[in-house]
């Protein structure tokens, strides 16, 4: 129960920052429409998916993943000193990480709902619940990446740049727009992208992509826990 009470406090912190709420609500529609409009100009080629739909599906994943990464990053960086003081007061670092992740997932779920609703306005989503579940997976994946980057590179500008490049590159490699060969298959969003595409187009669970997705999740979780628990603040000297 205490974990949920702490998470409630973190969410209070979050909603008291209006600019962040605007970003959570505005970035998904903007990214989805930008990707869709950009790819509309590409010709429909035989045997390939409709470019505009591919663009919107890709934009949806990018928007939620990027937002989750940024929220994870800034949660860790902006509260780093306060968290260290709390640890000295007796809080366990794992409990702190747990509250950070729970509040991140809550914010991410809101962003996913907005993204899915936006996508549904332009594309028929065959299995909305399944698609929403895949977006949550993408949020967890990139939220953990944000926590990791924030722990090992606790500077807002540099950390944000790393996340922008990671999300952009990952999304491009995962989108099936280009033949990226074996490199693309190792991109973290490759399997979630296949799961999401399948949920949107056919409404089926692409079972062969589920296990690799879970493997990435576990790997990212382990790395994030190690990075967060080992990153103690070294406060500025006098």
């Amino acid at each position, binding site marked *: 129960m205490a974990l949920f009470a702490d998470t409630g*406090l973190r969410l209070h912190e979050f909603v008291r920052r209006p600019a962040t709420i605007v970003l959570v609500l505005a970035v998904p529609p903007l990214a989805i429409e930008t990707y869709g409009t950009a790819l509309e100009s590409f010709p429909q080629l035989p045997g390939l998916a409709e470019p505009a739909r591919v663009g919107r599906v890709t934009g949806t994943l990018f928007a939620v993943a990027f937002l989750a990464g940024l929220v994870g990053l800034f949660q860790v960086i902006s509260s780093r000193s306060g968290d260290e003081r709390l640890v*000295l007061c007796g809080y366990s670092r794992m409990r702190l990480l747990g509250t950070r992740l729970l509040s991140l997932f809550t914010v991410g779920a809101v962003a996913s709902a907005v993204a899915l609703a936006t996508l549904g306005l332009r594309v028929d989503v065959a299995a909305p619940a399944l698609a929403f579940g895949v977006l949550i997976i993408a949020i967890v994946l990139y939220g953990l990446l944000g926590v990791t980057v924030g722990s090992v590179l606790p500077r807002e500008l540099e950390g944000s740049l790393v996340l922008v490049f990671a999300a952009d590159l990952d999304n491009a490699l995962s989108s099936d727009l280009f033949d990226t060969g074996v490199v693309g298959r190792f991109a973290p969003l490759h399997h979630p992208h296949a799961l999401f595409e399948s949920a949107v187009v056919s409404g089926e669970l692409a079972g062969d992509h589920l296990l690799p997705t879970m493997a990435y999740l576990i790997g990212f979780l382990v790395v994030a826990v190690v990075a967060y628990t080992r990153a103690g603040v070294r406060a500025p000297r*006098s």
Partner: protein
Amino acid sequence: MTPGEQSATDRSSDGSPVLEAREIVKSYGSWLPFTRSNDVLDGVDIVISGGEIVGIVGANGSGKSTLMQILVGAMDADGGTVERAGRVGWCPQETLLYDRLRVDETFGLFGEGYGMSGNDITAARDRLANRLGFEAFLDERVDRLSGGNRQKLNLSVALMHDPELLLLDEPYTGFDWDTYLAFWELTAELVEAGTSIAIISHLINERDRFDHIYTLRDGRLHVEQER
């Protein structure tokens, strides 16, 4: 050790130590080439006994806050040992609070960290807010507090669990005169009750309030005043 350079551990004390630090060494280095390391602490010894109030002064950049962070456990020393007995309260120079939480939420969060019950947290919050004069701001967000009120909250977080050892880094920065006097009244009561207090400041005016004053210079503590 040169004449006149007495270790802080050499003084006799009747009370048992609540803090004992020996041979503390700290340097700031860099992994970048062509940069040199900065030796900040070079064998600092200090013992603080029950009910003592100790001042540590030093020039800017002398390593006072570094020493305080090592004493409280917020920073690892390169060498030496630190032993603490009992509950520790730390008031850092930078407030290290959550800007978008309210004052009452801040008490709740840190109080839970200390393992206090809800009733104890409320009692401590009301007692300290009344004593330091910020009861009108309990429902205010931390980032909307004045510098002085932020510092009162910073100090209150260090005091709320009735620590046996209180480590205060520039604790009265931004206080108005009434709060400054209230602060010293409070510390006098705490010392009377057996709490040990170490205050770090770049400037200590009222020297008769301290049992011992040390100067941090060249990486070591030098006795400046004994009572």
